[in-house]
């Protein structure tokens, strides 16, 4: 990595030219955005050129009346978020977005947000892409339309492929209505079971929930488990839902961001803290996914590992972010194996380079359909231009 030449094109045409040059030189290319999710994949065996989208930035089209935005890959996510918010739009996924998180990086990494319960995974919002292919051509897939079935859905193939099939150079995303009113529910429980039970009840009763999380970031044993519910929507909808949830679950108090009240400022703080809580300081994270009904079994498997963890669980979706330290190869492999045994999947994030190179970030099993995935990769990149060996199954 350290010896790779960094190339930062200013346009899609320049990016394509850089790829053609690399192809002629038989160089291996790693497509990068802000490098914030570098640890989500294994280090590439070889990289000659780092093709950075850092300067490939800017909004291409934003038509507020149509609810669609198109931007170049290197555009900071936070910039897009702020732009669409001015027109009453919400950009999903809601993710922690320091200034170096880019729209292309989010799409290439297939990063879904804490708002997934309400808006679905990232792949549902990606309407179209322009991708620089390994032969230096640029291929369009999808479009700037909310509904479109013309041609194969290659945007779903590139979303989450971490640039192993091409450089995501331009992205069109579907926007959503920003919430008119937000509310936060917080409750503390001595046991995980009671917290999960409350979280499931909120999900069952609510239609305006953006996220319902169970976390154990506090250390006080009486209030170790926190239920954190976020509601968003039209004013009347949120007001009515808060009052019905209060009646059904009196132990869950709500703070509603009513205009002119102190809570108007408080709610966004709590809300943003919750959405930004993916990586509690310095800990290494494993994202665990399972069927929602297999969550308890999955958490027991994690308990049995005997490793101290802090978790943020999303019981409705079957997603758990577990943070762990200290960490060595043995711990990673043991936890991965224990979780695989109960049918859960792992994705380690944030490991140091040295450890990342030695462990399997995606668990012990190869993904179903790996042979087909390899054929797709070989067909789209016959000469092995894009840096390989980074995803599940060595893709």
């Amino acid at each position, binding site marked *: 990595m350290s010896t790779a030449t960094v190339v930062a094109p200013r346009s899609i045409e320049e990016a394509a030219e850089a790829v053609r040059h690399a192809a002629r030189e038989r160089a291996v290319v790693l497509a990068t955005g802000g490098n914030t999710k570098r640890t989500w994949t294994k280090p590439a065996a070889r990289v000659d050129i780092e093709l950075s989208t850092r300067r490939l930035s800017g909004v291409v089209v934003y*038509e507020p*009346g*149509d609810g669609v935005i198109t931007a170049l890959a290197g555009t900071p996510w936070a910039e897009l978020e702020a732009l669409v918010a001015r027109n*009453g*739009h919400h950009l999903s996924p809601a993710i922690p977005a320091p200034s170096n998180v880019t729209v292309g990086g989010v799409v290439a990494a*297939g990063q*879904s947000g804490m708002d997934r319960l309400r808006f*679905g*995974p990232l*792949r*549902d919002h990606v309407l179209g892409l322009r991708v620089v*292919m390994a032969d230096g*051509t*640029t*291929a*369009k*897939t999808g*479009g*700037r*339309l*909310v*509904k*479109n*079935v*013309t*041609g*194969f*859905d*290659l945007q*779903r*193939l590139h979303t*989450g*492929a971490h640039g192993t099939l091409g450089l995501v150079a331009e992205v069109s995303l579907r926007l959503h*209505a*920003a919430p008119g009113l937000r509310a936060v529910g917080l409750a503390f429980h001595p046991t995980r079971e009671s917290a999960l039970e409350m979280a499931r009840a909120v999900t069952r009763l609510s239609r305006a929930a953006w996220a319902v999380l169970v976390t154990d970031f506090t250390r006080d044993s009486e209030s170790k488990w926190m239920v954190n519910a976020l509601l968003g*929507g*039209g004013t*009347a*909808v949120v*007001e*009515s*839902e808060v009052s019905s949830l209060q009646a059904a679950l009196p132990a869950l108090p709500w703070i509603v961001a009513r205009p002119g009240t102190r809570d108007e400022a408080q709610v966004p703080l709590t809300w943003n803290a919750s959405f930004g809580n993916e990586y509690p300081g310095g800990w290494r994270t494993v994202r665990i*996914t399972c069927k929602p*009904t297999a969550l308890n079994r999955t958490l027991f498997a994690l308990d049995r590992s005997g490793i101290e963890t802090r978790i943020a669980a999303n019981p409705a979706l*079957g997603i758990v972010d577990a943070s762990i330290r200290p960490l060595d190869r043995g711990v990673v492999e043991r936890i991965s194996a224990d979780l695989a045994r109960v049918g*859960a*999947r792992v994705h380690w994030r944030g490991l140091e380079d040295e450890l990342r190179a030695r462990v399997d970030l*995606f668990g012990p099993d190869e*993904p*179903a*359909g790996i042979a*087909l*995935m390899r054929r*797709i990769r070989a*067909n*789209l990149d016959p000469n092995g231009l894009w840096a390989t060996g980074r*995803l*599940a*199954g060595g*893709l």
Partner: protein
Amino acid sequence: MDARVVEELRAILGHSGVLAERARRVTYESDGLAFARHVPELVILPRDTRETAAAMRILHTHGIPIVPRGAGTGLSGGATPVAGGVVIGTARMRDVLEIDAENRCARVQAGVVNVDLTHAAAEHGLFYAPDPSSQKACTIGGNVGENSGGPHCFRYGSTTRHVLGLVIVLPDGEVLDLSRPAVDAQGYDLVGLFVGSEGLFGIATEITVALLPVPPVTVTMLALFRDLDAACDAVSDLIAARLEPSAIEILDELTIEAVESSVLAAGYPKGVKAVMLVEAEGSEAEVAATVDAIEPLLVARGAFDVRRARDEAERARLWAGRKGAYGAMGRVAPDLYVCDAVVPRTKLRELVRQTIAICHARGLRIANVFHAGDGNLHPNIPYDRRNAEELRRVLEAGDEILKACIAAGGSLTGEHGVGLEKIGAMEWMFTGPDLDAQCRVRDAWDPLRRMNPGKLLPVHACRETRTRDPRGGTR
């Protein structure tokens, strides 16, 4: 078809699983694209994944083309066997295998009829969201192949958003089990890639879909307009205001007349130029807020009457009229060319006007009935297929409409697929490199290109010799 192949297939599928007699094969000569017809050499009807895989291994050995088919309700000729070969129908794969109410999902065989899944889910308080107009006949497998839509996809999205897992039989008979237990794929998203691949990648035999909780309250509104432009503008306003009803549909005057003269009479008043159906779903507060926000916008654009369905029976009648609109058009002419295109939602009025002008310039009538909220136009052109000259004008108008939509930043199809019908138009929208990427992905699934040949991808784009215009031989 070689008698030995027929015998091999009968050994696996039984006598009733192999249709070799011409009289029975003729049923499979076309789908909803009536003017394209080609009788398949053989039709087979496997009962499950195992039988499908065994049959496809045999067809692979003999190098025979395969055309997958659900209920044959598709409108783009996707199930028409233009290149000969064997049609594999899913008509005997009709089992709902599992409803997992707790995880809000269901596992079904590919031949399960769309509406039957929703009925099966209803007892758990759940429903399956994609609702094509043909939902009483079309199958979940066919919906997966086409990434089908429907009115309520405005809120819930097309089929792809609801497919969680698939069991796919690849062209050589290999079974790929992608019934994923978790929320995201590992590696590449093969499931997302397969949905909407129009039968070119393989056959999905089992499908795991997401189910949604039935909303506690549903209100259906009917807004009446004195002109179609105003109705289109009202939709653009609703989108710009970021309102989120579950469906926004428009029917024009000719459609209204046809529906009201048929057994599906929905109570749409005759003499109005456009009706808009808007549905709001959710909690009582959510529905009330949505309806209260929508009504003034409609009135401001000239809706002279905005009604709400008083009860479930009226609601059902309003929707029956919309969903039966294609059938009702049978009163206007023997055949109907159902166009399907998408435009940005800021350009609805402009493009709807153009579709009308294009048809009138060719002496054709036009009935617009469409998923306005998604910008998904359905200009329908009544015609008589026995009149070759009229059919020529109809197809010419269809092409012009597509070109106009593409020029406005739109696309060739929102839910019916490219199939046979629009294969020649792919190059209006995509460049050589765009199509090359699609061909390369297709070749990873089906290196011998035996799956549904002559559909979706123009063959010369895949660096093959183009032997003939695939539509030419059938028009």
